[in-house]
């Protein structure tokens, strides 16, 4: 993390903390039964699946551990993780299965 001063790192931590708190407090704080309009809920529903896949795709295709070269062990691990998460609907199983595939792949392929 050479690119950031300690001050910048703390700005990120504190601003993210405050911003996250206000997202969580938003509607609770305004009391009442005021509901978000349906169109807004429709967009919000998709934020996790809109952000996470785009964030992870370049990390899978061009991993930092190999200097950005696509790597069969990591690609296999990625596929296994998504598949397990889909089938079991359980994040933890996905992580365990993905790591197991990664180590198996690294051991086999080198």
């Amino acid at each position, binding site marked *: 993390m050479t690119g950031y001063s300690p001050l910048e790192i703390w700005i990120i931590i504190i601003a993210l903390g405050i911003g996250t708190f206000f*997202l969580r407090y938003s509607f609770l704080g305004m009391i009442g039964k005021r509901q978000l309009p349906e169109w807004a809920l429709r*967009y919000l529903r998709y934020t996790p699946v809109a952000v996470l896949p785009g964030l992870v795709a370049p990390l899978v295709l061009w991993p930092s551990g190999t200097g950005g070269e696509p790597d069969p062990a990591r690609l296999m691990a990625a596929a296994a993780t998504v598949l397990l998460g889909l089938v079991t609907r359980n994040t933890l199983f996905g992580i365990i299965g993905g790591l197991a595939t990664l180590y198996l792949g690294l051991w086999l392929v080198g």
Partner: protein
Amino acid sequence: MPAPNPISTAFWRGFRHGLPFLLVVAPFGLLFGVAGTEAGLNMAEVMGFSILVIAGASQFTAVQLMVDQAPVLMVLLTSLAVNLRMAMYSASLAPHLGPAPSWQKALVAYFMVDQAYALAAADYETRPEQSLAEKLAYYAGACAPVCPQWYVATWIGAWAGAAIPPEFALDFAVPITFLAMIGPGLRSLAHVAAASVSVVVALVLAFLPAGTGLLIAALAAMITGAQVEIWVARRRAME
């Protein structure tokens, strides 16, 4: 035998329901501690994330974008976008917990992690006759086995992370964590469409300054998800 106190009954019901999530939260927190340390953060900074933000996916997002040397503003915008769903949680809990005093609602907001929200929403739905105090007690009970362990697991991960050799390929533990969160989120055609657009646009725009392509990809994906949802609902209505 005295009649059981409804407040403590609600608390312990929440506690029991929250307990299994310990199995998810502990390894996830451990991994964040390791990832933060590997990225070059010191113990105070790693703990700062877990205590002040207390939202795993956005913490991982921030650390990853910092590794990519994204500008501070991009780190913040993208990580906050990951937490936008919490406004939806807040809206959904407001009819139940809205009448509570502000300081209690502030505590509810601070601890509003995915698991606490999901449990509370389901419980308030099944037991609508509960008093406000019981609802708050249930919420506190559901948070108790989950939230404090997030700090402890992060601390252990940060402390142990420095000792893990590179052969363990921990560079890839963070992508695996994200990927494992995506699978269970693909609940409908609209979710799959949104995820696919997110991947394609992010890869195509990967040449842009760090974080920029992702922000555009996320926006395009949210619009896609919403549109596909409308489209599927219309098809259903026509049948």
